[in-house]
């Protein structure tokens, strides 16, 4: 709780700092605050506690996820000053909104009550609508924001409808009650089916699962790259966390399983296939995020509730997966921004050409992160996928899993295409300028990816 408050207060604080025009202080304050929050969470480690009369429940899972999201936010902030260097004013808002959105994310990792679920999602989303439109005078930015808003609101409606129905069934917003009801009354009633269905639809939207993925490519494409990066990482993690909590507490009743299978298959297929011929890096990353959502769903699919079964493992896997995915993605986005600047604003993946010739180590970092996304051994991405495979097989989803393997192969294709660019010579000489700090961030991501790949327990140690 204290951490939650700290973060929201921090947001306000940042706004004030901005008010006093201390642009240079924004990032440091933010970073300090985030570090503080991390510290608070770290102290609250291993101590499950409830808040707001059980509406929020901070257990190992939510703590771990919150920490991971904070860590990624830290990376974003570290890169922030560089990115916003050219932006004259309203920089404070950017940081503040990210922090607010982060609060929503943390709510999603810990909610125990559908009211909190709803609030979490909204608190997470609304700042993002604004952030997506961060470049006031860029049409693409506006369009992205508006699309995101419209589609988001639409999905919210679904979510709410679902919540309402479930409420109608149990007469309470408490997940525990719902779980108990399912356990006792079974899954017969139409209210339950519809309710679960609509809630899942709402969650799937945030996660960017097919068929509710339409916003992902456009918004990722249109939003300012740093925001895209934030969405692709922190928001993703929050969404999967929220999704997991819902599935886990309800203990995967049978209609839910059926929906999830379809979602999983569709997401893996569409996400990977659409990425094949994508040459705009931001959109490529968007599709890649969809496809990874698919793999996370596969893990989720194998969940059979914490009480009954492997919930804890699934949670661990999801955390590992989303965190490593976020690390690699964050690093790549920073690399992308650097390359984009070097090629005056071009966003196609050819902009990476010549990197190996001029900055070999940077290229190697990029390679490592791409391979991680592709799931090649000795990278975290590989271990993550392997865990997912293990879960899926353990839960007996052999065929779905076989399909997943094929899709993973497609995935490798488009990541390798980018990797290939990294190592090709560019037609005309390009100069990539990397500030030490950025280099540090990228290196951090790479090291993280490799370290977690070689020593996976690093994440698995909690709970």
């Amino acid at each position: 709780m204290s951490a939650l408050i700290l973060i929201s207060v921090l947001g306000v604080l940042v706004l004030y700092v901005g008010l006093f025009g201390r642009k240079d202080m924004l990032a440091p304050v933010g970073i300090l605050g985030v570090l503080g929050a991390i510290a608070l969470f770290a102290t609250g480690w291993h101590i499950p506690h409830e808040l707001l009369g059980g509406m929020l429940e901070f257990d190992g899972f939510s703590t771990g996820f919150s920490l991971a999201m904070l860590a990624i936010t830290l990376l974003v902030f570290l890169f922030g000053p560089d990115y916003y260097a050219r932006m004259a004013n309203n920089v404070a808002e950017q940081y503040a909104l990210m922090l607010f959105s982060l609060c929503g994310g943390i709510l999603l990792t810990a909610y125990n009550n559908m009211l909190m679920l709803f609030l979490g999602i909204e608190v997470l989303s609304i700042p993002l609508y604004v952030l997506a439109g961060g470049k006031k005078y860029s049409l693409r930015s506006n369009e992205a924001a508006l699309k995101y808003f419209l589609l988001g609101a639409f999905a919210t409606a679904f979510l709410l409808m679902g919540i309402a129905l479930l409420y109608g069934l149990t007469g309470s917003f408490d997940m525990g009650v719902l779980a108990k009801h399912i356990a006792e009354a079974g899954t017969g009633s139409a209210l339950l089916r519809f309710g679960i269905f609509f809630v899942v639809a709402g969650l799937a939207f945030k996660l960017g699962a097919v068929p509710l993925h339409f916003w992902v490519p456009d918004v990722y494409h249109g939003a300012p790259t740093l925001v895209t990066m934030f969405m692709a990482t922190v928001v993703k993690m929050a969404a999967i966390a929220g999704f997991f909590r819902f599935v886990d507490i309800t203990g995967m009743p049978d209609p839910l399983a059926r929906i999830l299978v379809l979602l999983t298959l569709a997401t893996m297929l569409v996400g990977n296939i659409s990425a094949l011929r994508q040459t705009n890096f931001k959109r490529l990353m968007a599709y890649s995020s969809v496809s990874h959502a698919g793999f996370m769903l596969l893990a989720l699919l194998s969940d059979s509730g914490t009480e009954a079964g492997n919930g804890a493992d699934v949670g661990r896997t999801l955390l590992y997966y989303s965190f490593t995915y976020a690390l690699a993605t964050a690093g790549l986005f920073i690399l992308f921004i650097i390359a984009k600047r070097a090629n005056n604003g071009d966003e196609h993946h050819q902009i990476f050409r010549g990197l190996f010739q001029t900055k070999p180590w940077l290229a190697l970092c990029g390679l490592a992160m791409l391979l991680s996304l592709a799931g090649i051994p000795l990278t975290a991405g590989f271990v993550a996928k392997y865990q997912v495979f293990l879960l899926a097989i353990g839960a007996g989803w052999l065929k779905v899993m076989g399909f997943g393997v094929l899709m993973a192969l497609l995935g490798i294709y488009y990541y390798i295409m980018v990797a290939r660019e990294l190592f090709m010579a560019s037609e005309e000489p390009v100069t990539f300028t990397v500030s030490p700090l950025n280099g540090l961030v990228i290196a951090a991501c790479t090291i993280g990816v490799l370290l977690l790949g070689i020593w996976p327990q690093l994440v698995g140690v909690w709970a």
Partner: protein
Amino acid sequence: MVSTDLLALLVPALPLLGTLVIGFGRKRFTANSGGGLATALVAGAFLCSLLLFLRHDGGTRIVHLFNWITLGDMNIPFAFQIDALSLWMMLIVTGVGTVIHAYSIGYMHDDPRVATFFAQLNLFTFAMLLLVMGSNFLVTYIGWEGVGLCSYLLIGFWYTNPDFNYAGRKAFVMNRIGDMGMVMAMVLLFLQFGTVNYVPVMGQAGAMSPDNPLIITATLLLFLGATGKSAQLPLLTWLPDAMAGPTPVSALIHAATMVTAGIFLLVRSSVLYDLAPYTQDIVLWVGVATALFGATVGLFQNDIKKVLAYSTVSQLGYMFAALGVGAYSAGMFHVTTHAFFKALLFLGAGSVIHALGGEQDIRKMGGLKNTTKTTYITFLVATLAIAGIPPLSGFFSKDGILAHTFADSPAAYAVLVFAALLTALYMFRLLFLTFFGSYRGTAHPHESPKVMTVPLVILAVLSAVGGLLNIPHVFGGNEWLKHLLATASEGVAAEHLDLPVSTEYLLMASTTLLVVLTIWYAWTIYGKKTTLDGEPAGMPFLKRLVARKWMLDGLYAWLVEKPFGWLSRHLFSFGEGKVAVPLTIGTGKTTLGLGELVRKVQSGNTSFYLFGMMAGVVVLLLITLLSA
């Protein structure tokens, strides 16, 4: 006193040594030094063999060198088997080999790559010795393949000529076709008996009942190998082409030694063949057919070496016929005498070619008996020998075969006699056209140097008196060679010829008479020719057919070579080009195309997105509800 094992080791070691020394020092060796060394080494091998032979006590001695292939219960030693049979072959190989080596010094004197030639010739001798000395099928197979390779190299010795290269390749590949049988037979025998050593294999096989499928299969497969090596139907067309090689090569490899490997192999495994009458019949008739084939085609050849080549083919046919009727000793005897007179014939031919500066067409020869006297006389001796005029060696050996065949199958006998007459005919045609009449060429004939003529003389003597080795009882002989070989080969020991003496006399007399008549006939046609216009046009069909070698080459080209080339081309252009690779690439391209398609769904239109979301949700809803 050198131990027997060491001697046995020396026999193949000396030629090998020659190969290495001459081969690596080929820049330094001249014809004389290199040739001299090579000859000396082979002569040394001959002496060793001779020593071994003299020491030979009629037993079988296994000289075990080391374990070659050992795996689990498989143990294949690298060992030599010293017994009468191998000793006899060693003597032939090294003896004739020595003579031909010496001859080559003169014949190849001016060739720039003479050292290489001798290295390869020595290598051949080495391989041939392994072949005959091996104590098991695999060691024999080493030599078997080795001689094949050497013959490939030596046929294509003048490698700038594509035809020669082709001939070499043809020889090797046809041998390989035979080798398939050889290998399979070895595998079969090994899996049956758990060993490939001759002694135990023959021992165990001897205990088996005759006509059992295993033995028949094995013998047939072995015979396939033999047909390849010994140029029997249907695998014989390589031998005439092999004449592309230098003449000494033709003499050594394609007349005296390598081509008799098949006969050797069958004699080695005579036990098996005695157990498989079916196979024996096949061997007999293949031999007979080949004998006839060679003789007929030989009639129409105008290249002096080609004539001899086909004659070789037909003589080999005789030998197989002998094996077919179980007359192993007769076969071996003919191998021996044939080695003498056919080597002599080739060397004589070589001498003639040498004398005419490379001319090989007998239509451009004639009247050489005055200019090249030694060659002429020796050649005459050989011709008489091969024609089977008593008391020359050929008479005895051929007669042995005929007698046995008559006892076993008169039909085969008739054909063989006919072939014998043809032999006389084409041989004397050759002789007359070459040495009689008047010279039709343009070169300036001159007798060859001593180094070439001396070998001729030696061989002439051998061809003349070689018959003494195995004089049949009817002449009060004791069939020395047969008794010798009987110690080594149960097959020979089991031989028996039950013909009344009178019949035998009759056969010999009649055959000889017919032959003499044939010779006279040949004289009338070819004896006094001064000019020669090729065969008269409008030959009858049969004649044309024979002149074209019974279309055998065409048959192969049509049945094997063309289809194979076609297959190869089309498997590549179709199988790979149209199926395998496109399938892979196609899969990839389709997937990519699909990706392009799916990507286009992202139309950018918000209403459409909203609709899509709703539609998707509804579809999901329906599916989940319906599947419930």
